[in-house]
């Protein structure tokens, strides 16, 4: 017994494969039932949205005046004007279009708006925040002052003005909503950057002669990822809500294209006589928003090192 066996014990201790933050996080995330079911629901909705044309024989814009506002065959109750029959699983809308296909096409638009606008806010916010936090001093103060100014704008009003001006341009809506949502992202990233700016590994990078922008890109941004990931998953539902809000006011997507917001607002108009028109889009939207929120909460718990 002596020094030799001690070192082997230490060696053995070091032989245990290291667990990175990400492996740990994934384990904790997959143990979170709410987050996993959220991911499952989201995957199903996304796949259904992508393969929408294959799932139903009807087209999203084909009208059929034989089945106007008809209930699906399985809808309970006897005082319903007509039954849609055929493969109209969710019934038909006020001009006889199949609601099932329209809900899935609405999912396409809503999810696309959610993802693209979030991407815009991600790029803007992370770049801006990391730059402000890393450069610091006067530059930081100026840049964050600018964010403060934009923060106090009643932004939804500006988005409305934008949508009116550019005549409900589809792409502009992505950009307008994204350009609004980046502010919080910039603040989060800036705060995180400030806290790691003086860590040793940044100093080491500088000592090794890495340029300023390369340091930001290679060393700062990867280390602020976890709060950003959490915030992104919570931004997507916000964006989807914002889009549906605009669509509800009649400033969003235009016919025959549709989104959940448009479908819900049309459903609300006929709620008394054809409740399925409100029910199905609302269910899809609520399920999706729930999923994103559950995943976001799950990620926050999984990535927060304080809770280990």
């Amino acid at each position, binding site marked *: 017994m002596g020094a030799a066996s001690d070192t082997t014990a230490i060696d053995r201790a070091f032989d245990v494969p290291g667990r990175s933050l990400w492996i740990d996080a994934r384990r904790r995330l997959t143990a979170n039932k709410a987050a996993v079911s959220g991911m499952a629901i989201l995957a199903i909705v996304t796949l259904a949205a992508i393969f929408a044309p294959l799932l139903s024989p009807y087209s999203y814009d084909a009208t059929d005046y034989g089945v106007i506002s008809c209930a699906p065959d399985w809808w309970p109750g006897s005082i319903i004007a007509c039954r849609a029959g055929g493969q109209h699983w969710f019934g038909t809308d006020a001009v006889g279009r199949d609601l099932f296909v329209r809900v899935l096409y609405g999912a396409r638009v809503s999810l696309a708006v959610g993802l693209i606008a979030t991407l815009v806010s991600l790029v803007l916010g992370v770049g801006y925040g990391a730059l402000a936090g890393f450069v610091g001093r006067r530059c930081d103060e100026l840049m964050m002052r600018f964010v403060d100014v934009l923060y*106090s704008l009643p932004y939804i*009003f500006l988005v409305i*003005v934008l949508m009116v001006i550019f005549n409900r341009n589809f792409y502009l809506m992505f950009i307008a909503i994204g350009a609004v949502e980046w502010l919080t992202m910039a603040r989060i990233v800036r705060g995180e950057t400030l806290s790691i700016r003086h860590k040793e590994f940044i100093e080491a990078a500088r000592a090794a002669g890495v340029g300023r922008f390369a340091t930001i890109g290679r060393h700062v941004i990867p280390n602020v990822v976890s709060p950003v990931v959490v915030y992104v998953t919570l931004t997507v539902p916000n964006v989807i809500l914002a889009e*549906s809000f605009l669509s509800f*006011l009649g400033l969003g997507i235009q016919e025959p294209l549709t989104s959940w917001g448009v479908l*819900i607002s049309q459903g609300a108009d006929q709620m008394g006589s054809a409740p399925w028109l409100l029910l199905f889009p609302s269910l899809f939207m609520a399920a999706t928003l*729930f999923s994103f*929120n559950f995943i976001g909460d799950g990620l926050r718990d999984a990535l927060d090192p304080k809770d280990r």
Partner: protein
Amino acid sequence: MVSFVCRRLFGVVPTLLVIVTLSFFLMRLAPGGPFDTQRRLPPEIQRNIAAAYDLDKPLYQQYFIYLDRLVHFDLGPSYRTKDFTVSELIADGLPVSARLGLSAMAIALLFGISLGTLAALRQNSATDYSLMSLAMCGITIPSFVTAPVLMLMFGVWGVRFLGYDISLPVGGWNNGAFANLVLPVTVLALPEIAIVARLVRGSMVEVLRSNYIRTARAKGLPEHLIVLRHALPPALLPLVSYLGPAFATILTGSLVVERIFAIPGIGRYFVEGAINRDYTLVLGVVIFYAAFILLLNLAADILYAVLDPRVRYQ
């Protein structure tokens, strides 16, 4: 303290200027104008109208004219609602919107704080989980879904409770009668209740774990005193800084709610104004709301500094 408030007040001015400039020029980028009608007016009449509203001058001159008026608290005439100034229109809608928003805020705070505290006190119990899932519902279900559903339930079907008919009107204002307020205020307050409850629960859980609460318990203080006197005030601090954003959300929500329930508030003017290219009306509402939110944020900051001695006026 006084210098802190003054400095923050002066900080509001450049922010407002940015907002005014941005919205002024954005509005003018729009194709079409406020006086485009189905029937084309004779050119001389068009010229007269443009001259009457200074629309014939170069854009930068119009901008300075607008700024000059704004400094004198004159928001200009409405282009589409004839014979009304924007200030008159806002003054007309404000009492309605304010009553709606303030009632919603009061209800959100009352229910949010009590539900959040309840959830925190029973942390990780069935009560906690069900309250927090309800809160999640409140956040994810948009007001334009809750509104028609509630309208259907309380207005169209009619609800009987203990033999009383508690049907409610589904629209109109009726000079702010209580029955007309119930549904719109509920719809407006629901998401806010959810957010407040989540916030309060989070901070309350943290406060309840702190040492001085344990001390209070060790000294044998009754539970309701611990909660009300020692835990609640510090737990409500984060709520103060949420006040500004909360009012912003309620204003946004009121756009939809005023439209659904046909309530003659400011939000309706705004959407209609934007669609009709009523430049002055839209600008007026944006500036009014922006100033309101800025002042609220300022008030929240000051209140925070007063309530939390650790915050210094910088």
